[in-house]
């Protein structure tokens, strides 16, 4: 997963309906870039049948020392 470029961010915010200028798009790219890079090792690797609700199942499972 690569960080979005300012140009891509500009297009995305236009689609969302809250357009930003190039300066803000550049700032956003710098702000969220590290999150994309930090998550890169996980992105695209998850099993097909995994869904968000799995978190609640793990959370409620009994964990003994």
């Amino acid at each position, binding site marked *: 997963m690569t960080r979005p470029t300012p140009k891509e961010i500009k297009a995305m915010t236009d689609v969302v309906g809250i357009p930003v200028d190039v300066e803000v798009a550049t700032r*956003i790219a710098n702000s*969220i870039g590290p999150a*994309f890079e*930090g*998550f890169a090792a996980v*992105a695209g690797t998850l099993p097909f049948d995994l869904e*968000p609700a799995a978190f609640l199942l*793990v*959370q409620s499972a009994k*964990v003994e020392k």
Partner: protein
Amino acid sequence: MSAEPALLSLTAVAQAIAQKRLSSREVTQSCLDRIAAWQPRLNAFMAIEADAALVAADAADAALAKGKLSGPLHGVPLAHKDMYYDAGHVVSCGSKIRRDFVATTTSTALQRLKDAGTIRLGSLQMVEFAYGPTGHNAHYGAVHNPFAVDHITGGSSSGSGSAVAARLTFAALGSDTGGSIRMPAHFCGVTGLKTTYGRISRAGAMPLSQSLDTVGPLARTAEDCALLLGLMAGADPADLTAVARPVPDYLAATRESIHGLTIGVPTAFYVDDLDAGVAKILDETIAVLKREGANIVAVELPDQRQLTAACQLVLAVEAAAFHKRWLIERPGDYGPQVLMRLQNGLAIPAVSYLEAMRWRGPALAAYNAAVAGVDAVIAPVAPVPAPTIAESDVGNSPDAESVIQRLTRFTRPINYLGLPSLAIPSGFTRGGLPVGMQLIGRSFDEAMLLRIGAAFQRATDFHDRVPK
């Protein structure tokens, strides 16, 4: 009995009122006196409701005189972060946008404390919409740290940390989405409990991120947090994420020894790049726990940087979604930093957000496996003590997000995993700034954290230190 009732702990003052050793009016007046003295220096309160508080205190005293005790916190005056809906009261959420918003409902957590007998002192300052870790607020000014007023309190529960530390309120509700209870607890030298996701209802609490938001108390001691948690925890038809698990006797847990418990110290991440003072206090805290009978072992945790990144993806998107309407209609009414951070969420693809959400289960399972041999993990809340207000006033500058990420790097993984964490005052730097450590537990095992925290507080006096 302390000459100044406001200096008592929540548990002690509640008992003193119930046993008629102190009246609610005496206690409330004592808090109001301290508020009058400290508020000009701290800016901790959003609203001070002195007359109404004294009227409520008199009513509580009159009821008690007739033998009517409304609950375990009868007549105890409290103030909370200004994001808990309280019917008929303005709830600003630290914002200009909601400056005049009058709640028509009362949040479940707050109602449960009212049902226990508490009375309202006013409301506490916070970071705008709870979206920031420092305590700055573009609309209402920064809140100041009572131990060093040119330093930050941490946020977003800035007023809660400051007011509890200065003994203006016995305890305060905060909220923790990325560290917003633990950061002020650490910087201000108070005890703060970030609860398990689902332990306390979020109904009527201003949302920031529905997958990460948690409600919890800041107070002077682990025992006080235990008392409050026991009153607030449990299922709620108004919030189906509040789980219907039994509510343990948290107060009883605080009286248990920690002899024979095993506490894990991470081998990496939480011990990397620490300020020298924080590192020293971590070592001293571990030494105290060892003296109290705990076994200390090293634990190798999964890559916490990935958790931090996943947390940022989830938080940014969910916050932007909550705020979309105002981002369209009133962007100029946000402070620069909050607007900047909300805009970040507009640029994260839905697939990335959902991948971060889908990974939570496996990530929690991997963490649980790594800590299977320990009862809790200990780690610093933040790598540094409180910076100054001036040096951390980064606004919407290009490096603002990196400053924020550095401050919250030890708290965000815990929010992503939904785990409970108790921040406890653990020492002071040479310069007199408080430093807190966090005890991280298993899902829904707040009792274990409160047990360890209380044992630590029986052996130390950091939580008893009152700012001058």
